[in-house]
Each structure stands twice: as structure tokens, then as C-alpha cells.
């Protein structure tokens, strides 16, 4: 097992300083840093074999296409999807959910139908459904949460009805860190013949995601949140759904035959990949996946669990600090507020100590409304973070208190 010092050495940016202080990067929920191998993989595409995929007869195009398809296979195996046809590349989680909300809505949703979300969703898993519901005259139903920031399953079961067309929930909350009870959610939906989309933006990078076991119908995630490049994401869909729903974008590569009278679509997964895809980023994502596998997903989870309990302990000991999201089942993400101190002030001062956190509503305003607050400070950790960094955060918070109270 690689120790944390060696792991950190794989990520060039982690050794930099900001304002003359060592960087403490606690904004992994927003985006993660990239190991050298990912940077190299993307660099290599542009330096050695860049050519547009699926089009040319020439050597470079062939090489790029091969690397792109190898990346798809890599993703398929990583998430344990049944077939490569079920793995669609997109621009990210937001792109994936928007795509499904449109295509699924076009095919299956009528006036009066219902889509179930949870109160924990970030805006990317709210707004696309709202837009679709407005178009179709359908209605959003929302699973409430309790004080610990967990969804209330009994209320969810009550929401499932013959009008429910789809359930779309996060694997883990970006604002609070709560891990959702996916087994219960998915099996109840399936008993009611309702498909489920899991938003894996905050799930894919923590522990093992096995879609055969999870048995969701759609799964979305972003490459940049699992140490890969920005601008690439994945939409997984069970073949039966992807075959039935229409494409969400039209353009090159997604077509079979085009005439001005009628266009027929390409086979899966290309039907959903219109225009030039971000193939260099797909190659980078494949490299990030290789990297994660080389460290070991179980090992990553164990490192993160250690950080989770240590940070819990350190933060809980700080007087006048409230942690929002007290579930037993959490990713190492902490949303907190210090009594009488604006989160923006806290974030500004921590920043000058070299500590990167996020402040505000974290694109999840309904969660903030639930607690009647206008924002929090969020520290989102991952396996390359250390206990020393958690100490630096705790000390930083004490310093903020002495300055502002």
C-alpha cells in the first residue's frame, strides 16, 4: 500500500504554496486535483496521435478512436456495466442528467406524471427535471430529509405511485456528505416498475461503484471529480432504456443516414454522442481510473474513513461550531457554521492561510432552506488529504474565531 506522502507526490499541485503557506486543498467536492499520469495521458494525445475520432481513414484518427474506445471499455469495467453500449460519454454529470431528463421526458412523460427527487439534490439534479416537467406538464415530488440530513424513507415510499415515471437521487449529498440508502430506494422503485437515475457526482470517487449490484437504470458522473480531466463525464443507461429513448443532441457521428426528409440514428452508444467528443479528456479519465485502481478502491475508502472520523472528532471539539449533516453514513464532506460568523468571512480568512474551502449554498439551496441558513463553510476531503491538514483547518477556525468574535 502506498503511503499518503507517496500518494501526494503523484499530484504535482499538492506541493504548491498559496500566499506563502502550504496548500490545504479541501474543495474536492467541487473538483479534484489530477495525478501526473492523467496530465501525461492527455498531453500524449495532443503530442502523439491527435486526430478526430470515428471519421478519418488516416492513422492518427484510428489511433485516437482506438484510445477513445479503450477508455469506454475502461469506464465500463470500472463501474461494472454489462455492455460498452451502455456507456455514453458526455461533458459531465450536468450534461448527463440534462440529456436523460430531455430524452426520457420526450419518450415517457405526460401531463400529470411525477418525478421523484430528494431534498438533498444539487441544482444539477433539480433544474433539468424542472425544465422537463414544465415542458410536459409533469410534477416534481420531493423526498424530505430529517435533522441529521438523511432522507426519510417512509415518506419516499408514500410518494411512489402509479403516476411516478422516474426517481432521480444523488449517491451522496454534495452539501452535507450524506450517503443515500440506494438499495432501499432502487428496490422500492423497481417494485413499482419505476426506473431510477443515480447522480454519482459525489459517489464515484468514494469506494466501489458496482452498477450490476446497484441495479440502477441510469448513472451519471463527472471525470473531474475522480481525478480526471474537466469536460468529460459519463452517462450509463441500461441498454433497454437507451435503445428506446430518442437522442438529446443531433449532429455528426450520431447518425446512420441523413437526408432532409428523415435521419436514422447510429447504434448505441454513438446515438448519444453528437459532434466531436472530448476524446483527449476521455483518455485522461481512463488514466485516472487506472490510477484509482492502482491505489485500490478499498484502500482509498479506508483512508477516507479515517479522515472522516478524525475530522469529525476535531470539528466537534470546536466550541460554537455546528456541523450540518450528522448521518452515520457519510463521505468525508463537512458542512459547518460558526456561531455569529458569516461563512464568507471564514472562507476568506482560511484562504489566506492556504486552506481552500467552499462557502455559500453549494448549489443546493433547498438543503440550506431546510436548516433555515443562508450558507455554510464546506470542507470536502479525499484520500490524498492528511490529518495534519485537518489540524490546520481546526487551528484556522480557532484563529477565525479570535479575529471575528
Amino acid at each position, binding site marked *: 500500500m502506498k503511503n499518503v506522502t507517496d500518494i501526494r507526490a503523484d499530484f504535482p499541485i499538492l506541493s504548491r504554496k498559496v500566499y506563502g503557506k502550504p496548500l490545504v486543498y479541501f474543495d474536492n467536492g467541487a473538483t479534484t486535483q489530477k495525478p501526473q499520469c492523467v496530465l501525461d495521458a492527455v498531453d500524449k494525445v495532443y503530442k502523439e496521435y491527435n486526430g478526430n475520432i470515428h471519421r478519418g481513414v488516416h492513422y492518427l484518427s484510428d489511433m485516437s478512436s482506438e484510445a477513445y474506445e479503450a477508455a469506454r471499455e475502461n469506464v465500463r469495467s470500472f463501474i461494472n456495466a454489462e455492455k460498452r453500449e451502455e456507456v455514453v460519454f458526455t461533458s459531465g454529470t450536468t450534461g448527463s442528467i440534462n440529456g436523460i431528463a430531455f430524452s426520457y421526458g420526450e419518450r415517457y412523460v405526460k401531463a400529470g406524471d411525477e418525478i421523484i427527487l430528494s431534498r438533498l439534490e444539487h441544482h444539477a439534479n433539480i433544474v433539468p427535471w424542472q425544465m422537463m416537467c414544465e415542458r410536459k406538464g409533469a410534477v416534481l415530488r420531493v423526498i424530505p430529509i430529517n435533522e441529521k440530513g438523511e432522507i426519510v424513507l417512509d415518506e419516499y415510499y408514500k410518494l411512489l405511485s402509479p403516476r411516478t415515471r422516474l426517481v432521480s437521487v444523488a449517491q451522496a449529498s454534495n452539501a452535507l456528505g450524506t450517503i443515500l440508502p440506494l438499495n432501499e430506494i432502487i428496490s422500492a422503485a423497481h417494485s413499482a416498475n419505476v426506473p431510477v437515475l443515480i447522480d454519482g457526482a459525489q459517489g464515484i470517487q468514494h469506494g466501489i461503484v458496482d452498477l450490476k449490484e446497484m441495479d440502477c437504470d441510469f448513472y451519471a458522473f463527472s471525470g473531474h471529480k475522480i481525478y480526471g480531466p474537466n469536460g468529460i463525464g459519463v452517462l450509463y443507461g441500461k441498454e433497454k432504456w437507451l435503445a428506446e429513448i430518442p437522442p438529446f443532441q443531433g449532429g455528426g457521428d450520431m447518425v446512420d443516414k441523413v437526408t432532409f426528409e428523415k435521419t436514422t440514428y447510429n447504434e448505441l452508444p454513438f446515438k448519444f454522442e453528437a459532434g466531436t467528443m472530448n476524446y483527449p479528456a476521455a483518455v485522461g479519465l481512463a488514466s485516472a481510473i487506472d490510477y484509482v485502481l492502482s491505489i485500490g478502491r478499498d484502500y482509498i475508502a479506508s483512508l477516507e474513513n479515517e479522515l472522516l472520523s478524525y475530522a469529525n472528532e476535531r470539528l466537534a471539539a470546536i466550541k460554537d461550531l455546528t456541523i450540518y449533516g450528522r448521518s452515520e453514513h457519510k463521505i468525508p464532506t463537512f458542512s459547518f457554521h460558526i456561531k455569529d460568523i458569516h*461563512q*464568507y468571512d471564514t472562507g476568506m480568512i482560511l484562504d489566506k492561510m492556504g486552506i481552500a474551502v467552499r462557502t*455559500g449554498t453549494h448549489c443546493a439551496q433547498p438543503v440550506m432552506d431546510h436548516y433555515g441558513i443562508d450558507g455554510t463553510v464546506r470542507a470536502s476531503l479525499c484520500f490524498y488529504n492528511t490529518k495534519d491538514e485537518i489540524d490546520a483547518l481546526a487551528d484556522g477556525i480557532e484563529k477565525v474565531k479570535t479575529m471575528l468574535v
Partner: protein
Amino acid sequence: MTISEVQNNIIEEFSFSDDWMDKYNLLIDIGKDMPVIDPKYKVKDFLIEGCQSKVWLHPVYDGKLISFTADSDAIITRGIVALLIKVLSNRSPEEIIATDLYFIDKIGLRQNLSPTRSNGLLSMVRQMKLYAMAFQASKK
């Protein structure tokens, strides 16, 4: 004092230390001394909406000079607001419109006024200049 003199004084005041914590402490103190806005103006009409910290700004024009009172729900933001008021309050509309706020950059707070920071400060400067333009127009 001219606007430039006020700005130069602020730059001087902030040059005592390179340590950010010292500068923030100074900002916090300056914020505490700011002429506080009458609570009746802390309403939506005078709210400058930033994404994260709120700023309320109220102008009074006596036919010659514009004076501002303001507040923010974040303390460091309040300090920066106080600095802007020091520089731009009790000035003629013409002066306010023409002023180049160079002190912001010189004391290292430029990033707080960039469009990527959602703290309402950039909107506040715009709003101060807009009030000045409106008062100037009303005079004619």
C-alpha cells in the same frame, strides 16, 4: 481632502504589514467604525445582491454632495464597504463618476472586486456610480 489624498492615506495605512491577517484585522476595525445605515434602509430596495454576502447601500443627495451609509452581513466585506464609503461619500456626483479606485489594487484587495468574486462589492461600486449619474441627471 481630495479623493486621491484619501486613497493615498488608505494605501499608507495598509502598508504597515505584509501579513494578510494584519490587513484583515485592520479591515475588521475599519468596518466597525463605519457610519451605520439606518435599519429602515436595510430592505430589498437598497440591497445589493451578491451571491454570498449581502450589502445594503443608501445614498442621500443634498443638491451638492452625495453621502452614503451602508452595511454588510459579512465583517470583512463590511470593512471593504467602509473603505469605499471613506473614499466616495460626501463627494459630488461628477467626482464619484470620474474616480478611479486605484487604492483597491494597491492594498491587495483587487480580487475582492473581480467579477469572479460573488460578494456584491463590484455591484456596489457600480451602484454608487449609478446613483451619482442619476443625481447628476436630476440636477440638469
